[in-house]
């Protein structure tokens, strides 16, 4: 698999590629990978990382794209389970002042943006632990 031309230090290796699983790791960066699993109902759950944030490695958007291409039309919903990271930070920032609901804020983070770009325009909040601005866990489900 060829890395995106704009990237540096991206040496991708697909380590899982089945009808229900896809995992890609960057051999050059230890905290850079995506791992997705598709349930029998078509719900995609995934973990994606590119740390540290030093503008190197395989970009998140590109790994997400490869995962979505792998599963294709089988995906009915994209699940986001956020306990740390940019998605949770975004939701907390945007809900702390009451500017947005969780559902609205969910589309502003990286996963929401990736999902939206692929036609997943609806979101359902499945779980919220905490209060606006300091949520510790958010689980959402994006659908078309």
């Amino acid at each position, binding site marked *: 698999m060829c890395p995106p031309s704009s990237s540096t230090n991206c040496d991708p290796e697909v380590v899982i590629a089945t009808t229900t699983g896809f995992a890609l*790791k960057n051999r050059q960066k*230890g905290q850079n*990978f995506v*791992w997705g*699993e598709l349930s029998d109902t078509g719900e995609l*759950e995934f*973990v994606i990382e590119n740390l540290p944030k030093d503008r190197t490695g395989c970009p998140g958007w590109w790994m997400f794209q490869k995962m979505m291409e792998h599963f294709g039309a089988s995906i009915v919903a994209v*699940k986001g*389970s956020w306990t*740390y990271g940019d998605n949770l930070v975004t939701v907390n920032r945007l809900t702390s002042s009451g500017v947005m609901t969780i559902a609205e804020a969910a589309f502003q983070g990286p996963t929401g943006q990736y999902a939206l770009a692929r036609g997943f325009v609806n979101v359902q909040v499945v779980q919220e632990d905490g209060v606006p601005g300091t949520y510790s866990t958010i689980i959402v489900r994006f659908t078309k």
Partner: protein
Amino acid sequence: MNMLDAATLEQLRDRYRNQATPSEVLREIVRLLGGQQCHRLDLLANVRAAFALGLGEASPIGGWSPDGTGELKDAQIDGFLTPAIEKNRSLWDRPKASAV
């Protein structure tokens, strides 16, 4: 994927049975995988294999680092993983075959 063998995974379960916290077990997996530079995908895969965790259940590991620099600290990762490990106990905590 760099997977530990079945006997080693069982030793990790024993550590947990003997009151080790999930973060302590994670550090041991990191050590067994070659130290701090091990790939996080391998860490994730081995924790899932040891404790029958779903991907979502194991996902907080991405925010944890063995040197304490991760966004999630030990107490937080323990708080996420312990309920999941206990929920799935029937899947990984099987009686050991007795020696004949």
